């Protein structure tokens, strides 16, 4: 390469990023890539584009575990996007503490987020040292059991109404060549299923003591031993689920190859996309039909600190668009999640969502584990449960011992 072409190449390298940065283009990164999720994101993009700005979609495939490292390294590496999804809670805590994220307190006070966001714990998770750093967009609850009515019909048993009936129906399902419980291979699925079992079987207080107060004695105690016994049942019932992704596991339920799945309400988007109807084609049991409590984790958008003033303005516009009542309804209906505002009309909601709204209105809520535990403890928990679910030689007692150690070391 001679000197001149080298110079041209250099100047091109400098000029390109400048020309690509259109005044109010905002790149938004997220990991919503399954069919139902993509449809929901399109609603957000539509609403944001309507404000005169432009939503540049930065979807990262492969679920949060793959996407978050990419997002974080872009922010810490000095190449921040306009806005990014995180599960609200502690995932972005350190980014905020080191001053890489934008303070949204102005927008929040102007639009009165304190009063409209229900439950208040959602906004609390966005608040660090009295300042608000994220805009919650939805409430996702983990505590759902999705059952395929067709599968139970084929096995000749009633569709169960709670976890115990489901366990009792498992042999009949197996006889009919159906995997009773679909648990995908991604580690977070096994860990999540356990948390759900804990809320359902040990109840709200124990859950709070273990994950909220990090009480290792409770974690090693008899209540949690019962949960591990249920997890042992779940492990036996999940044998033969040879899929990785959660939506593939959901698809097993949709097609009747599996009896049920413990998965968050985001699974609902997949059922809807497949044209299935709640109540007739599938059944949902919040809190596994035992303890009707839902966790209020969910997704939130964080806004990295940008120098470009135009973009900063666009960030504000996006933040208020996300919480706009119309956007909230359109987005959450597609996503299968619950809106973060208590004052929106969800007449179009289906049976399962109505059940969820009902529980929310009664206030039977807990914080999600993402809000209570650090990413480090979550990962250790994932390691433990993905091993536990895949390896029948680990006894529930051993697993509980290791679980108590993780809780003891958690911050």
């Amino acid at each position, binding site marked *: 390469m001679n000197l001149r072409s080298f110079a041209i190449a250099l100047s091109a390298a400098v000029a390109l990023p400048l020309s690509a940065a259109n005044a109010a283009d905002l790149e938004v990164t997220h990991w919503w890539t399954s069919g139902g999720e993509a449809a929901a994101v399109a609603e957000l993009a539509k609403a944001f584009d309507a404000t005169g700005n432009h939503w540049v979609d930065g979807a990262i495939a492969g679920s949060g575990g793959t996407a*978050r490292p990419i997002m*974080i390294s872009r922010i810490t590496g000095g190449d921040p996007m306009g806005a990014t999804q995180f599960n609200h809670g502690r995932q972005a805590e*350190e980014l905020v503490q080191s001053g890489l994220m934008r303070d949204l307190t102005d927008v929040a006070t102007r639009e009165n987020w304190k009063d409209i966001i229900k439950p208040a714990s959602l906004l609390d998770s966005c608040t660090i040292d009295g300042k608000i750093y994220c805009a919650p967009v939805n409430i996702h609850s983990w505590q759902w059991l999705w059952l395929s009515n067709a599968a139970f019909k084929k096995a000749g048993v009633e569709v169960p109404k709670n976890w115990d009936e489901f366990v009792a129906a498992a042999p009949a399902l197996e006889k009919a060549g159906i995997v009773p419980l679909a648990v995908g291979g*991604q580690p977070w699925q096994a860990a999540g299923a356990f948390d759900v079992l804990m809320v359902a079987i040990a109840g709200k207080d124990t859950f709070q003591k273990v994950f909220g107060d990090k009480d290792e004695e409770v974690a090693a105690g008899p209540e949690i031993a019962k949960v591990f016994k249920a997890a042992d049942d779940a492990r036996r019932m999940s044998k033969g689920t*040879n899929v*990785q992704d959660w939506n593939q596991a959901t698809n097993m339920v949709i097609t009747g190859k599996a009896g049920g799945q413990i998965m968050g309400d985001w699974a609902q988007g997949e059922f809807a996309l497949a044209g299935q109807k709640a109540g007739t084609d599938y059944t949902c049991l919040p809190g596994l039909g035992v303890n009707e409590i839902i966790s209020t984790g969910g997704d939130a958008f964080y806004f990295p600190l940008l120098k470009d003033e135009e973009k900063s303005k666009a960030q504000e516009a996006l933040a208020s668009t996300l919480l706009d009542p119309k956007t909230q309804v359109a987005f959450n209906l597609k996503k299968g999640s619950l809106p973060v505002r208590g004052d929106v009309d969800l007449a179009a909601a289906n049976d399962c969502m109505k059940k969820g709204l009902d529980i929310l209105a009664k206030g039977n809520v807990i914080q999600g584990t993402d809000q209570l535990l650090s990413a480090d403890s979550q*990962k250790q928990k994932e390691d433990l449960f*993905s*091993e536990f679910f*895949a390896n029948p030689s680990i006894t529930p007692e051993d697993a509980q011992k290791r679980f108590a150690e993780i809780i003891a070391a958690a911050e």
Partner: protein
Amino acid sequence: MAGYSEGSGRPNQWLRNLNAKIASVPMILTAVVIFLGGTIWTVVYSFTNSKLLPRLSFVGLDQYERLWDAPRWLVSVQNLAIYGIFSLIFSLVIGFVLAALMDQKIRFENTFRTIMLYPFALSFIVTGLVWQWLLNPEFGIQSVVRSLGWESFTFDPLYNSDIVIYGILIAALWQGTGLVMCLMLAGLRGIDEDIWKAARVDGIPMWKTYLFVVIPMMRGVFITTLVIIASGIVKVYDLVVAQTSGGPGIASEVPAKYVYDYMFQAQNLGQGFAASTMMLITVAIIIVPWAYLEFGGGRKRV
């Protein structure tokens, strides 16, 4: 390689061959700052409790204690040992045998060589995905054999915790032996034709000639191959991610994946650094004695 010892009457030793010395400054800086500096930085921070961002608050050996208590790390180390030993043995043996067969002045040698080397042109991710499909019980080898009438045939290594690491090994061998074969073939071609003639005159059987005459003469090629294979073994990551993502459960985890997961997913840099320091030590334990023997004291033998 200081060359000749400095003579008494020579001018300043440092200024000798100045151009060459200046020219090598960037390389030396790169080596010291980037490689050595980065390594030292990582080791130092492995003694801290850095979470998402590096920070210097030392916690002694805590990260290492936690590391060696973690079942997942122990499984990873064990997997790496199994994978390492078998892939070393098999790729050397298969590679050499293929090369020896290729060396029999066969027809279409070029074609065969290309076919054997072809998998090496694929990335580990592609290799992993190809074998993930081949080894999938519902679409791959198992279903093909079953459709031929052998109903009870079971071959699903990727879904069986006990043998999953061998499923990964198969893919690694498929990808890697072609290269080993080519290296070996080059080595075999370097053997003087007269050696073969002499062996034939003495009536030594061919296998004995290979084993006792040719292989010892190919020491250099073997060492090069060994280093290439060994470095590939320690850093194995993408193959596992593409084939099993560490599953079922944690049965096919490897150290490099532990490092990545804990650094980025768990947002615990300290733990990731501790694990990568352990990997560095492993490599050092293998490389240092070898480098000492090879380049250190005594005359060079190759």
